[in-house]
Each structure stands twice: as C-alpha cells, then as structure tokens.
C-alpha cells in the first residue's frame, strides 16, 4: 500500500513529468492562457494518459509479448494513443463544443504529447504490473494536471501585468516555468526516481 502512495508522490511531485522530466511542454505553454481551458485540457489529458497507460500495457502483455513482436511496441502504442485521443475528441465535442473550439488543435496534439508515449514506454522499461501501470499513469496525469492548472493561474496574472514588451507572451511564461521547475526540485529525494 505504502508503495502505491510513494509512487503517487513520486510521479506527481518528485519526478513531475512536466517540470522535472520536461515531457509534455507543448500543451503546457499552448493551452495555459486561461484557467478554464487549462482545466479542460488537464481533464482530457488525464483521461487519455491513464487509459493509454493501461491499454498499452495490455497490448504489450497480451499481443506483443506472446507473438514475440516487442519491437513493434512504439508503433502499437502510438496506435493505441491515437485511438484514445480520437475518442476523447468526440466526447469533448459532444459535451462541450466551446471547450472543443477553444482547445482547437491542442486536443488532437495530445497524440504527440511526449508524456503520454513516455508513460507507456516507461511502464515497459520499469517492468510494471497491471496495477502499477495504472497507478503510474494516473499519478503522471495528476502531476501534469496539477502543474498545468497552477501555471495557467499564474499565466492569467502575468497577462494582466506590465510585462516589458520583449518578454510578453511565451517568453515570460517560459521564465516562470523555469522558476516553477526550480521550486519543484525541492521535492528531490522524497522518493526514488
């Protein structure tokens, strides 16, 4: 039990995918202008990440390993992720057309989110079991969501401020993200990598 708690702490804080492992920075900068958009994106990514973590594990264990096709893991994981993202797109479009419109291109770009593929591949590398990959995926997505929401709140306040012209927009955003990253380094040592 404590292993799972530790795993959560590790993936959410200590080895946060965004700020420590620097994966998934594209939607991080692209969608964080407004809080509502960021929350929508965080939920969509959580859904995709968790499901893809589990389904890619299953595809690996039940199809690729028995058939000796482990070298196909990258392709098949991409296939799984793409299907899941398409499915998520349809759900979002139905439930909230406004969010669909506002997320725009970033919704299908979850397919290319390196955090999602990263989690799937890391599960294999770490030799995780089914339940562990579920926790790992969930933890990674919660960490992503946490940082995305925190950053978008900060970004909203940055947009209101008197930022000098050369720094406006992404520039000041990246500097702030760097400082957040420094802050998250304070968690190092709490749990094994």
């Amino acid at each position: 039990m404590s292993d799972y708690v530790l795993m959560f702490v590790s993936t959410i804080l200590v080895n946060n995918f965004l700020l420590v492992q620097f994966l998934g920075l594209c939607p991080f900068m692209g969608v964080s202008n407004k809080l509502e958009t960021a929350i929508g994106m965080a939920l969509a990514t959580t859904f995709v990440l968790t499901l893809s973590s589990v389904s890619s594990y299953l595809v690996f264990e039940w199809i690729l390993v028995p058939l000796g096709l482990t070298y196909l893991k990258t392709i098949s994981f991409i296939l799984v992720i793409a299907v899941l993202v398409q499915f998520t797109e349809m759900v979002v479009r139905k439930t909230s057309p406004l969010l669909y419109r506002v997320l725009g291109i970033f919704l299908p770009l979850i397919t290319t989110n390196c955090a999602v593929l990263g989690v799937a591949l890391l599960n294999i590398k770490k030799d995780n079991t089914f339940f562990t990959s579920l926790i790992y995926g969930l933890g990674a997505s919660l960490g992503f969501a946490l940082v995305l929401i925190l950053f978008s709140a900060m970004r909203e306040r940055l947009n209101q401020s008197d930022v000098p012209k050369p720094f406006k927009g992404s520039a000041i955003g990246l500097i702030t993200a760097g400082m957040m990253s420094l802050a998250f380094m304070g968690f190092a040592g709490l749990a094994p990598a």
Partner: protein
Amino acid sequence: MSRVDRIWPLPGGIHPPEHKSESNGRPIARLPAPHKVVLPLHQNSGLPAEPLVAIGEQVQRGQLIAKGHHPVSALVHATISGRVTAIEDRPFAHPSGLSVPSIVIESLSDQEAALSPEAVSMAPMRDWATETKERLVSRIQEAGITGLGGAGFPSHIKYLGQRQIHTLIVNGVECEPYITADDRLMREHATDIVTGTQIALKILSASTAFIAIEDNKPEAISAIKAALVAVTDTRIKVKVVPTKYPSGGEKQLVYLLTGREVPSGDIPASLGIVMQNTGTLYAIKEAVVSGTPMTERVVTITGEGTPNPGNYWVTIGTPIQDALAATQVAVTGNRPRVIMGGPMMGYDVDITAPVSKVTNCLLVPSATEFPTAPDPDPCIRCGLCEQACPANLLPQKLFWNAVHHEWEQARLNSLSDCIECGACSWVCPSNIPLVQHYRFAKAEIKREAIETIKADQSRLRFEQRQARLERDAAEKDAKRKARAAEAAKAQAAKAQDTPSTLDASAKDAILASVARAKAKKAASTGPVTQEALENTVVLAQQAVDKTRVKLATAVSDGLPSVEALTGALQKLEKRLADAQSALQSHTETGDAP
C-alpha cells in the same frame, strides 16, 4: 465586557488628518433665508418628480410642490415662501455637472410677503407615542425626509420593509475629515435626537438602539449620554467607536457594533438592523412633533478658503454661491472651487447648483490645501491597498481587472461590494486613482447588462419579424396555389359548358374588357395605332384631372405635399401634351394601322 458593549475591530481603514477643529468650535449659526431657491425634481429612482404648481403661482414655505409617482421617491416641498418663477433645467449638484428639471422659487417683495401666511406645516403630533405606526410612517413620507448621511434614500421606505427589525443603529460616527455637522447637532440637540430615536424604535418595534459616536467627539458623547439619562430609556445605548475612516459606512458600522456582516448585495434589514443618521432622526422628530416638513439642514462650510468655517442651518435649495457668500466667502464667476461632501468621497460642484437634502458639507479648499494629484505611476504590487480596504476586498486585483476591462473577473472579485470610500487610493504610493477605476468598471458592467437586455429584445423582435414574413409568404403561396386550382377547375368546367350558357351581356362585357386591356397594352408597348394613341390621350387626361383635384385640396388645406403634387402634375401634363401631339401627328400623316 458584555456582548452588548463589545466593539469589533474594523478591518483596514485609514487615519487621515481630521481637520474637525476648524468648524466644530462654534454653535450652529443660521443663514438668512435666501431670496431664491432652486428645487431639483430629480429622484434616486431616475424618474423625476412631477410639479404640482405652475409658473407664476404663489407658494408658502412647507407647501408640497412636487410628487414622484415611483414608489421609491420623496416629496418636494417649497423651502421659502414666494412665487414660482421657472420650471426648467437648472444646474444640479452631481459629479456629471448636468442639469435637471427644477422648480425655481423667488421670494416675494416685502408688501406681498406681509400679506401671505408664513409657512405651511402639518398637524403636530405631540402625543406621538399613542399614534399608530402607519400614521407615523406616512408623516415621515409627507415631510419629504430623505437620509441625510449621504445617499439621500427616501427615509419612509426603510420603515415599510417586511422584515422583522430588532436593532436600530443611529449613525453619529461622521468619520470623514472636515465634516462636523452631526457633531454639533448632537451637542446642541441631543434631546431631539433621542426623541427621534424613540419614534423610530416605536415604528420599527425594535428592542434595542445603539447610538454610535466616534471617540474624537467627547462633547457629543456626553451630551447624548446626558439626554439619555434624562429620558431613562434602557433600550437606547451609546457605543463609542475608535476614530478611523470609514467606520461610518453602513456595512462597516453594522460590523463594528454587532460583529455581523451584511450579506453581499443585501441590506442591513436582512440582519434585522436599520440604520439612520442623527440628522435624519432630528428631521423625523421635527416632522412628527412639530409637523414641519424638511426645508433646511445643517451644512458644514469649511476649508482654508472660508473666512468663517463652521456649521450653518441652510435652507434647502439655496444656490451654493449664495450660501457661501452669506458666510463671507469671496464668490466671483465660477470661483472658488467647491467640493460637496468631504475630501474622501466629495466631488467638485458647479457653484450655481443648489444645496440639496444630501449636502452635508461645502468644502472650499485653498490651492495648497488640495493640490492636484501627480500623474499615476505603475502599480508596484505593494499590497498597501489590500491592507487598507474596509470591505476586505482585493483592490489590486480589481485595479488590474478594471484596466484590462475584465468585467467578469471584476464581478467575481466582488467589485459590487466596494463602497468607494477612497482608503485604497489614499494609501497608494503610486498615486493611482483606484476609486475612479472602480467606478468606471461598475459603470461598464451596468452598461453591458443594459445592452444585453436590449440586444435580447432586438433579437426577439428580429426573429419574430422573420417568422411573420415567412408566414405571410407561406400564406400568399397557399392562396396562389388555391386560386390556381380554382382557376383550373373553372377552366375545366367552362370547357364542358356550351357557349349558350354564357349570358350575352356578360360575354360582351368580357370582350369589351379584353379589348380595353389590349388597347392599353398596345398603347404602352405595341405598334402605333390610332386607337392606341387615342386611348393614351384619354388615360393621360384622366390622370391630370385626378392630380389637379388633389392639388387643389392640398393647397386649400395647406398640406406640405403641395410641392410633391405640383411636380407630379407638371409631369403628367407633359405626358398628356406628348400623347396629344403624337395623336395629332399620327392623324395628320394618316399612317395606316
């Protein structure tokens, strides 16, 4: 300390220099009655009161001269005896500097004054304790009493609420610097204020009254306490609050005295509390006990620009320049600069505007007393404004929202709870005019709400119009189809009928009309025939005759359509002439048809 005596600390707040001693040292003097008063008809509800008198009519002081139809409106009484000389737009004491419809009364000459009665008043209710609440409230309404603390809300409305009231708070705090009107009133008329409090308690059936006074008014405190001892009314207690601006704000004072917060968007009555200014209660006492309507009030005239700073009984409607001149302030053109109200919440006024029921202070500063504010510097996010806010808001966030026009965010940050006291602007090290930004934001939010309602209405009308047009088009279509079906049926029936069934005369008529139609067609488009030209002449003549008759009628009735008809007649006459000449030339040349 028992719960009743406890005072809660006001969050935030500031301590600006008080400047009270300039004007609170002398008793309230009485300004001589003015020769002219201007009484605005503008009410808080936005709908002006309607005059009950006409120009040239003679009125007496205390006579009802205007009444508003909106339920939230106050009556307007004549404040001097005289003659109504004008009912027109006059300058009004308002930050916009706009004029509103007002009744102007000028005093009569001495002989006329000697012949007319002095003043009109209502029947005194000396034994008011035996009167019913309804009678007392209608007396307050008939006296035209509005809140004298600042907003000028018609007072009787506060007594007509449905909610159960248990506490009356008498606001003698007067936290704004320079103003000392309530201070002197409490010192000199403490007994009357206590009587007013008792009347209010009776109307509200409340069990407790707190008279709140700041601790910088020790004489007022002892005067009120002495008056209470004389009356021995255990329901009324004096509560001394620490001097801090803005302790006198309605929601702030409720919290100070009871520890309870008035919910956002609601009034103290939701907590069972009603608040009245000491001046208002004095006016209520005068209206009930002596029957006098509200015709004058205490105004503090102060500032370095006044040679005689102090408090004065000023007749409501006195033009500000006249009131100032009566205290020996030099008035020329539109100088001096005069602020109505105090230095925190007051605004510059046109000195030809009249003193109104809400004028508690006329501040005449020297140039060095209130220098122009320097240009605002960028916000350095120091957070001093958040420390100073008495309503526990976040002025810094509201400032950024206002500058970037983020009205929804401003609304979520509780902009509507801002009382515009100015404490945040006062502490800002960058001299940012924060209150002005909030006022603009509130105005924009209100404007957007109004525009949304109007846009929804327009959209509804547009959609209904589209629906109507479609419906009409569909009906026309259906009718056309029905007629075509009918015609087809008739055609089929006709084909079966023998020709003899058709009446001979009917046949002739049909043939004749067919011939007429042919001729008309030929006349306009077909080959030139004698018949066609003759027809054209006949038709043109008919048109000219008709238009001549119309023109004659128009000229005799003097209608503006004469010009249009004359032009049309000219055109038609030309057409007739052309047709006649064409016929003539055709007849002459003898062209065969």
